[in-house]
């Protein structure tokens, strides 16, 4: 029986090849004609440079998309076991919804032509046609979209950490659509799309403000409107620890994010061909590394001094703080200045976490101290060390986070008014995995769900 089927299969394949041959030959002829035509206008060097620069951005985009599992692991590890499916799900849907909405409207809003005096742009639905001649530094719109959508999804996914353990899944999906479809692209247009902040000289190389502070302050808005998790603060307002359930996973997430940042920062040079670009990319990569190391090291020292023991979860946050701080200015500062920026970020993140505890704001993974506070620091450091005009830096550093914060306060308050924002107290205590999804992350394991 086997032999007979094999014979039939071979026969079918032979017929397919015979039928396809003329068609294939035709296609090859057409392609050759196109290439010859192009070659007449574009030199071999230009084609190679075009390919290298586009490949460089493609690899960068993949690295930034790889930051999504980094965020997912950090947030899952820093939260309790009973909410793991929920937090993973929110991270997964940030990317899925983000990609679709950024394709439909976000990309057009962010990189279109100015419609209302540098405050709002529109470039149509989807991705534009490739019309330029291939050359060094010319990006194909498709790869440009891939790179940009990865940034949009990063801004969105920051928030899931600060609203963890208590926000309804359905509401989160609405939030996720609004930030990637509207909030992030509109403020992105102000600078990267050539809007009013760009015109006044504001500088944000890879997005300390435009990506991280936008996400961090949106998260702060969520944490404030939602209120703290049950049991996070005692009746007299003292903070109570709600330890993360898996620090190996959180540490893995931070390492993944660190590696992903080599797409986030160096690839934001948008070209590597040419000695100037190559040198810039390599300096950016080293500055990024130095700031991350300094942030982690200083956070460790500070918690050691404050709490008598070095604390891993704070050092992990410190690494991310250094990375966020260097993102706006990694191309404009020296190696030594990168270390200083990381040191300050490492101190700020610890102080930020303590500040939120004082204010009784529950941000389970420290998304605001890392991305909001250190994003603002990155924006200011760009003026202090990077030599960019300080007034423009201050304006951008105040206005963009404020835009995100106010817009999200409104959105979360509307959701709250409709009773859609927060799960019931009983569901929160039992865990969102069972209540929202009916599916547990650690099936077969016994976990405590006592607070």
């Amino acid at each position: 029986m086997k032999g007979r089927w094999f014979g039939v299969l071979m026969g079918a394949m032979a017929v397919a090849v015979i039928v396809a041959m003329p068609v294939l030959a035709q296609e090859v002829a057409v392609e050759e004609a196109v290439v010859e035509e192009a070659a007449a206008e574009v030199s071999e060097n230009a084609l190679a440079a075009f390919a290298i620069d586009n490949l460089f951005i493609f690899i960068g985009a993949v690295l930034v998309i790889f930051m999504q599992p980094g965020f997912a692991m950090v947030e899952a590890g820093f939260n309790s076991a009973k909410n793991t499916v929920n937090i993973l799900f929110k991270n997964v849907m940030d990317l899925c919804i983000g990609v679709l909405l950024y394709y439909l409207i976000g990309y057009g809003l962010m990189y279109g032509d100015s419609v209302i005096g540098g405050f709002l742009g529109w470039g149509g639905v989807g991705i534009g046609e490739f019309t330029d001649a291939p050359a060094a530094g010319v990006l194909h719109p498709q790869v440009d979209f891939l790179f940009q959508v990865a940034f949009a999804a990063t801004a969105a996914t920051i928030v899931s950490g600060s609203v963890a353990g208590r926000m309804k899944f359905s509401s989160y999906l609405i939030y996720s659509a609004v930030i990637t479809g509207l909030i992030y692209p509109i403020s992105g247009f102000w600078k990267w799309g050539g809007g009013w902040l760009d015109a006044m000289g504001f500088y944000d190389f890879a997005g300390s403000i435009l990506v991280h502070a936008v996400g961090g302050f949106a998260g702060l808005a969520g944490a404030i409107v939602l209120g703290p998790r049950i049991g996070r603060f005692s009746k007299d307002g003292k903070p109570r620890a709600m330890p993360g359930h898996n620090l190996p996973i959180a540490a893995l997430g931070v390492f993944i994010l660190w590696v992903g940042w080599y797409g986030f920062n160096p690839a934001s040079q948008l070209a590597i061909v040419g000695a100037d670009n190559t040198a810039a990319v390599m300096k950016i990569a080293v500055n990024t590394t130095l700031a991350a190391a300094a942030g982690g090291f200083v956070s460790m020292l500070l918690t050691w001094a404050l709490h008598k023991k070095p604390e891993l979860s704070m050092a992990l946050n410190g690494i991310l703080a250094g990375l966020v701080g260097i993102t706006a200015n990694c191309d404009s500062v020296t190696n030594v200045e990168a270390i200083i920026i990381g040191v300050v970020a490492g101190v700020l993140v610890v102080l930020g976490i303590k500040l939120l505890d004082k204010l009784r704001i529950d941000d389970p993974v420290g998304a605001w101290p890392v991305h909001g506070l250190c994003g603002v620091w990155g924006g200011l450091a760009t003026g202090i060390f990077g030599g960019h005009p300080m007034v423009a830096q201050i304006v951008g550093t105040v206005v963009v986070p404020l835009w995100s914060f106010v817009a999200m306060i409104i959105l979360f308050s509307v959701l709250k008014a409709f009773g859609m924002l927060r799960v019931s107290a009983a569901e929160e205590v039992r865990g969102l995995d069972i209540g929202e999804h009916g599916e547990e992350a650690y099936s077969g394991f016994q976990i405590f769900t006592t607070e």
Partner: protein
Amino acid sequence: MKLIIAYIQPERLNAVKQSLYGSEIYKMSVTNALGCGQQKGYHESYRGVDIEVNLLKKIRIEVAVNDEFVKPTIAAIIDGARTGKIGDGKIFVMSLDECIRIRTGETGKEAIG
């Protein structure tokens, strides 16, 4: 000497601990338990297929007390654990033959102390 074993809802543990502390009962053992009584299970699903979860997550509290503490302990557990809904749990009281503190070799009333 009595051994009091209570099965309660996990989310009531904190309240039960608080009320036990309020009655000056500080010594207890707490373990995770799976069990079911009158309360029906809840549903989970995996890849679209329903799983009926019959055994629910519960918390088992064990407190060994001297006789004068039996009533306050029971009262404190009820005070912390009762919501009036099915699934609030049960308390078992049994007599305890002996108790020895390993460190000192004390027995009986002093060992529970």
